[in-house]
């Protein structure tokens, strides 16, 4: 039995003609079909390949196409040169078209005489359609890439640009994408900026992870948000990256302007808040001043109306004192009445002091000396109650400009008050100190002290029973007193606070944790 390689050529030819999906034909020198294969017969709509013998392309194709083929075959036969891989559009008589890839050659007999042509055609319509679709897609993509305002680029693993759009080329200072092709950032950007860009590229290649929306400024005064995505070949090896950058210079400037105006707004707001607080303080002071003017007029009127009857009672008492009475009690009754007149008169007197116009006579004063004077003035009150005085006066206290008589009155009032609450004796401590204003502390929360300014602090501490917490806020209010009727007018601490207010200072009373109360007076030591 012969081996397959020994089979006759006829068998191979027959197999090929029967089974090949390509169209195969043989023609004589007049371009008449000598033989066609089964696939071409099917294509022509014939039941059997033999039906084509003796016919020409004019029997199956449009006259124009048939004429082209006829001419091609004439040329092959005249020149002996084959036509290889010619792509042509075939048009059937029924109007159907198809793209084919054709190769044709001269056909010679065994002696080398030209006896016709033969050819083979492959229907590539599907491939041609796919190629057209791909081409359209590529063109669309290119149009998009070239026309978007964002910068699009691709690089190989050496950092060379393999693709750029127009916007990116122009950003890099070139006219066309082709000029940028093959260059690296080091050819196009300042060295420092190129280093940064390259470092990002390397990081993407090494990590195989995309870099998203990195804000960078590769060119002075211009800002980009850049994303870079690694690209891989079919085996997963890195081949480069694609990137897209959006210019955000305007947004960045707007953001900076916004931040600046936000900061300015914040500052204005703070200034407004301060101004508002100042206005409120001034408003309160004005209201207080108006109230005090009214109280002043009221006090003067009351004083006049009350002092006159008191004067009559007093004079009546003087007259009666010069008389002799059988009843021995009468002189003591007259004394009582005299005491009451004196008490009423002193209440009126303090009311007048409280409401009198406040004119200040400020001079530089040694406050420690003022305190010692005040202690001298109240020594009677202190001695009567066996109160021990402890002075903790700061050395080298600077002279402070204030109304000495008025502040002395403040000190006398506070010291007297402290002595009065220690009926069974105790310790009275007077302390002076200075301090720098660093911020708003508890003691100076309501004041207008300037930050950085110097404060004078006077503290008067007693060991008495203290003040009930609920009443602490009222101690400076007019007519508030904890002492029995007849022992205080309730105006002493109010006058005291008014004087301290006039000096722009603060006064506060607190209970001490160890017992007793502490009065703190804070004055501006830098006042001029």
């Amino acid at each position: 039995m012969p081996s397959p390689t020994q089979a006759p050529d006829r068998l191979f030819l027959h197999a090929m003609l029967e089974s090949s999906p390509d169209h195969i034909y043989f023609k004589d020198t007049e371009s008449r079909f000598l033989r066609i294969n089964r696939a071409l017969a099917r294509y022509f709509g014939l039941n059997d390949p033999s039906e084509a013998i003796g016919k020409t392309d004019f029997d199956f194709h449009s006259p124009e196409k048939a004429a082209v083929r006829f001419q091609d075959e004439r040329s092959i036969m005249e020149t002996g040169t084959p036509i290889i891989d010619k792509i042509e559009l075939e048009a059937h008589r029924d109007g159907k078209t198809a793209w084919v890839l054709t190769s044709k050659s001269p056909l010679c007999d065994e002696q080398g005489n030209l006896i016709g042509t033969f050819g083979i055609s492959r229907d590539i319509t599907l491939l041609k359609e796919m190629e057209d679709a791909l081409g359209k897609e590529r063109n669309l993509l290119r149009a998009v890439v070239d026309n978007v305002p964002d910068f699009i680029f691709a690089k190989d693993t050496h950092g060379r640009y393999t693709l750029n759009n127009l916007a990116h080329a122009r950003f890099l200072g070139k006219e066309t994408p082709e000029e940028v092709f093959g260059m690296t950032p080091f050819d196009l950007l300042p060295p420092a900026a190129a280093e940064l860009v390259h470092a990002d590229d390397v990081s993407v290649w090494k990590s195989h992870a995309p870099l998203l929306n990195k804000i960078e400024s590769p060119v002075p005064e211009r800002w980009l948000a850049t994303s870079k995505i690694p690209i891989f070949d079919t085996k997963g090896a890195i081949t480069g990256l694609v990137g897209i950058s959006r210019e955000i210079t305007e947004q960045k400037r707007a953001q900076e302007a916004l931040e600046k105006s936000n900061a300015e707004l914040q500052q204005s707001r703070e200034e407004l808040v301060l101004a508002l607080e100042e206005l409120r303080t001034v408003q309160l002071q004005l209201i207080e001043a108006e109230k005090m003017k009214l109280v002043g007029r009221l006090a003067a009127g009351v004083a006049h109306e009350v002092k006159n009857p008191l004067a009559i009672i007093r004079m009546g008492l003087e007259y009666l004192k010069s008389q002799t009475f059988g009843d021995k009690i009468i002189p003591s009754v007259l004394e009582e009445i005299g005491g009451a007149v004196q008490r009423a008169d002193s209440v009126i007197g303090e009311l007048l002091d409280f409401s009198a116009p406040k004119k200040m006579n400020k001079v530089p004063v040694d406050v420690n000396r003022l305190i010692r004077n005040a202690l001298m003035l109240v020594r009677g009150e202190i001695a009567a109650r066996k109160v021990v005085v402890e002075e903790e006066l700061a050395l080298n206290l600077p002279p402070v400009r204030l109304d000495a008589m008025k502040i002395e009155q403040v000190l006398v009032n506070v010291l007297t008050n402290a002595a009065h609450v220690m009926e069974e004796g105790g310790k009275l401590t007077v302390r002076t100190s200075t301090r720098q204003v660093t911020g708003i502390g508890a003691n100076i929360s309501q004041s207008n002290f300037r930050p950085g300014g110097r404060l004078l602090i006077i503290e008067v501490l007693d060991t008495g029973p203290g003040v009930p917490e609920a009443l602490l806020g009222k101690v400076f209010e007019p007519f508030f007193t904890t002492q029995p009727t007849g022992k205080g007018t309730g105006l002493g601490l109010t006058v005291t606070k008014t004087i301290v207010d006039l000096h722009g200072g603060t006064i506060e009373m607190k209970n001490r944790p160890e017992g007793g109360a502490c009065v703190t007076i804070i004055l501006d030591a830098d006042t001029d």
Partner: protein
Amino acid sequence: MKKILIVDDEGGFTRLMKLTLQKTGEYEVFEENNGACAWETARRVRPDLILMDIVMPNVDGGDAAARIQKDPDLAGIPIVFLTAIVSKKEAVPGGLIGGFPFLSKPVSLDELIACIHQHLPH
């Protein structure tokens, strides 16, 4: 006996003052309750000292004192204001109101006599 004129719209006050001062036996006391009549009364009485209220209806103590001072016949008479509108603290010794010494109401007999002695011509 020294003559003292008291000018004050408070009739009760002038009456008791007159009684009290006269009781000392050293003074002859005259009352005037109308500021407008103070000058006429002063001309009539020719006092050695005048005690003058300040706040009075129509003509107050200041105007009345000024008119008396302008009169050459009365100009040498010392005038002391007696007033209810200043506090005791302000009525310090040597204190003046409108150039005149003053006493603050209510006033004790001792204060009054001390003041009279101080200002009466010797």
